């Protein structure tokens, strides 16, 4: 990457650098053709409009005053480890359109490392010349860059040598970076948090948990409602409550619209009463009533864990009609293992697996092909019974019925693991080492 052009000037060899760390040159003297110091390099303006952040201007501090110049005719040299900045003819400009200042808005801030799926701090920035333009190509978040900033690079190197640890390459390529800082409304990044939306909701949830509340709120509100809903389900209960209480009402309604009612009920149990009541009032009455019912179940009963979005179809339709209905509903993966068959009074009559439907003759009636030998569980039974039953019969999910034998939900093994076993397991094996 680094091309070296020796430049002989007064008998001293200076290397022109085409790739360097920002911290090597920040706050260093800027000299003109005659070698006079015209101030110190204070900051650089970049634009993120076309790919990697492109440097379009630099800021010089001279006698306590700031001068903004166009990023032209400026060269960076190294002379025996000493950094030298030379310009020939600075042109003062007023920057109309830029995304942010490198030192002020990016250095020392938190960013998301998309590849490593975590929050890191910007210790340094790698800048390189690409096709005649200087661009930020990578972010450094490692210990070595911290040492460099503190002027103690050597000490950190020795320390790593001493402890025989390998100095890991901590450069994060800009493509894998998502900047969190939106400077102010005028300088907003063109598309906020675009890269984050490519992450898996579970990874995104981990990152959000690490963020401070303001970032978290802004990032969350920028996600589209489907992703926001999926992510919210994965977030820690305490932080879920926090987000629900703090995001805008319109966003909250959108997100809740996209969430299954049982998840909403779980979340509302964590938030304070006033907010829960407000949220319930803003929901459609039918959904709100269902959520209220779910919230009344005691802990560790089947009702408190069950999922109320499930597939139940009338006993009198055909396999062909079933497939068409499924196509229309496009249900979530976790509820599509079994199709439950009910009569006019919503009483459970039979069950079919997705496979049964697919292999059945199109004109066959569900009544004739369904499996009538159903194992179901009462909504007020304990989840432990549900676990016993599903493991005994190897079911991925079980139908839940109320006192009148009406199908009121299904209980999914994965939910049991998530809500019962994981918390228990975490309490017991709080892992260290």
């Amino acid at each position, binding site marked *: 990457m680094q091309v070296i052009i020796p430049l002989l000037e007064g008998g001293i060899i200076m290397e022109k650098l085409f790739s360097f760390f920002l911290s090597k040159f920040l706050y260093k003297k800027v000299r003109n053709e005659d070698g006079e110091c015209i101030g110190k390099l204070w900051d650089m303006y970049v634009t993120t409009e076309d790919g990697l952040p492109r440097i379009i201007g630099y800021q010089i501090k001279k006698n306590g005053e700031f001068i903004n110049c166009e990023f032209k005719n400026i060269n960076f040299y190294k002379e025996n480890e000493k950094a030298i900045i030379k310009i020939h003819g600075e042109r003062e400009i007023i920057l109309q359109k830029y995304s942010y200042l490198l030192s002020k808005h990016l*250095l*020392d*801030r*938190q960013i998301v490392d998309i590849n490593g799926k975590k929050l*890191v*701090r910007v*210790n340094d920035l790698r800048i390189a010349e690409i096709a005649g333009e200087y661009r930020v190509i990578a972010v450094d*978040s490692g210990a070595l860059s*911290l040492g460099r*900033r*503190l002027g103690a690079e050597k000490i950190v190197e020795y320390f790593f040598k001493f402890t025989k640890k390998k100095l890991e390459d901590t450069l994060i390529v800009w493509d894998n970076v998502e900047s969190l800082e939106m400077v102010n409304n005028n300088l907003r990044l063109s598309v906020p948090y675009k890269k984050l939306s490519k992450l898996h909701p579970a990874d995104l949830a981990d990152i959000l948990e690490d963020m*401070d*509340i*303001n*970032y978290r709120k802004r990032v969350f509100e920028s996600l589209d409602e489907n992703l926001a809903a999926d992510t919210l389900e994965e977030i820690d209960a305490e*932080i879920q409550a*926090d987000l629900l*209480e*703090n995001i805008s009402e319109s966003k909250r309604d959108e997100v809740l619209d996209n969430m299954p009612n049982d998840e909403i009920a779980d979340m509302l149990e964590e938030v*304070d*009463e*006033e907010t829960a009541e407000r949220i319930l009032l803003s929901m459609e009455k039918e959904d709100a009533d269902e959520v209220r019912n779910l919230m009344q179940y005691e802990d560790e009963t089947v009702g408190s864990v069950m999922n109320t979005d499930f597939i139940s179809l009338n006993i009198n339709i055909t396999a062909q009609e079933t497939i068409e209905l499924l196509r229309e509903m496009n249900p979530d993966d976790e509820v599509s293992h079994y199709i439950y068959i009910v009569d006019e009074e919503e009483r459970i009559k039979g069950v079919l697996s997705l496979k049964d439907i697919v292999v059945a003759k199109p004109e066959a009636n569900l009544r004739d092909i369904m499996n009538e030998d159903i194992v179901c569980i009462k909504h007020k039974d304990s989840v432990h019974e549900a676990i016993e039953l599903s493991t005994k019969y190897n079911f991925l999910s079980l139908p839940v019925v109320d006192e009148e034998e009406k199908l009121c939900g299904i209980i999914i093994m994965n939910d049991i693991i998530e809500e019962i076993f994981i918390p228990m397991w975490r*309490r017991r094996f*709080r*892992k*260290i*080492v």
Partner: protein
Amino acid sequence: MKGKKNLLLMMGIIGPGIITANAGNDAGGITTYSVVGAHYGYSMLWGMLIIGVGLAVIQEMNARMAVVTGKGLSDLIRERFGVRWAFFAMLVLLIANLGVCIGDFAGIAASLELFNISKYFSIPVITLLIWVLLTKGDYSKAEKVFFVLTLAFISYFITAILVKPDWGHVITSIVRPQAKFDAGYFLVLIGMVGTTITPYMQFYLQSSIVDKGISIKEYAYEKLDVYIGTAFAIITALFITICTAETLFKAGINITYAQDAALALKPLAGNNSFILLAVGLFGASLLACCVIPLSTAYAVCEAFGFESGVDNKIKEAPVFFGIFLLMLIISAVVILVPNISLIKIILFTQQLAGILCPIVLIFMVKLVNDEEVMGAHTNTSLQNFIAKGTIILIVILTCIVLASNFIS
């Protein structure tokens, strides 16, 4: 109904301020306030009032920064002042906190010595206990147990009323400044500042409010929480001083050992007074010995972007656990030095914290007045006057102490 809801909301928010203020009444606090009363009677109460006002304003600044920015103090220092200043601030914090931690280890040793348990036995065991508790155990439960132990300090409130002090005299002492011009007086005064406005408290308070995720709408409650906490901290200090002033000062006894400090509770508990002191001191010191290394490790990792949190494995967050362990070990080793005076160590570490405290406060004042950070929520001129006044007062006190050391 509306009132009840507000009360519930308030109960949810109130907490960080009161807990932080209570954490200030650790070994350093109890010992310093005891010495204030025992050696100088009521003559330092005026300082307590000024420190109290300063503390209220400073803690409120922390709370406001937490609510407005959603960021911890070391986070803000790093982002606004860059990596070098952050390094400097963290170094100061590390030294001050290590001092306070050593002081609290001394508190553990002193409290157990009252039960005739040798420090050579108690300190290694307790060090191991803290490490295991925070890495493998259920810390939040243990925290509650320690907290209950500190309730033994309520005995100071009862004793203060039992000894029937001349309340008129107490009040005039609070409002009328007076000073003895000897180096010891100012040194103790600095210690009092250090133990009341401890640097670590500012970091701890701000982080715990951030963690609670309190929004600006609910800020009024948080403000109340901070003010109640401060008032409680100062009243506790006042009552400890009254107890020791009425007993030890009148009898002319200086505090050199923890037994001496226990005499202040004699009017209440007679010859068993040492049990009250020992139990309270043990709980408070143990609490502080967990909280201080933990909050230091959090603050440093926050500033430099290292992985942090007790839920991590040690390999995942080596710096975090490293700082924590190092502070525990250094503190334990210092206390195990033979023939070291525990009371002197406690007092000295508080004075060190007092001297270092303005550095943290200067960062805070600059941050809280920065419109890019705080928007419309910068300090009012009265808040600035009090905050800056507190800083200047501490610096002057430090200068007096240093100067008098050179002269004598």
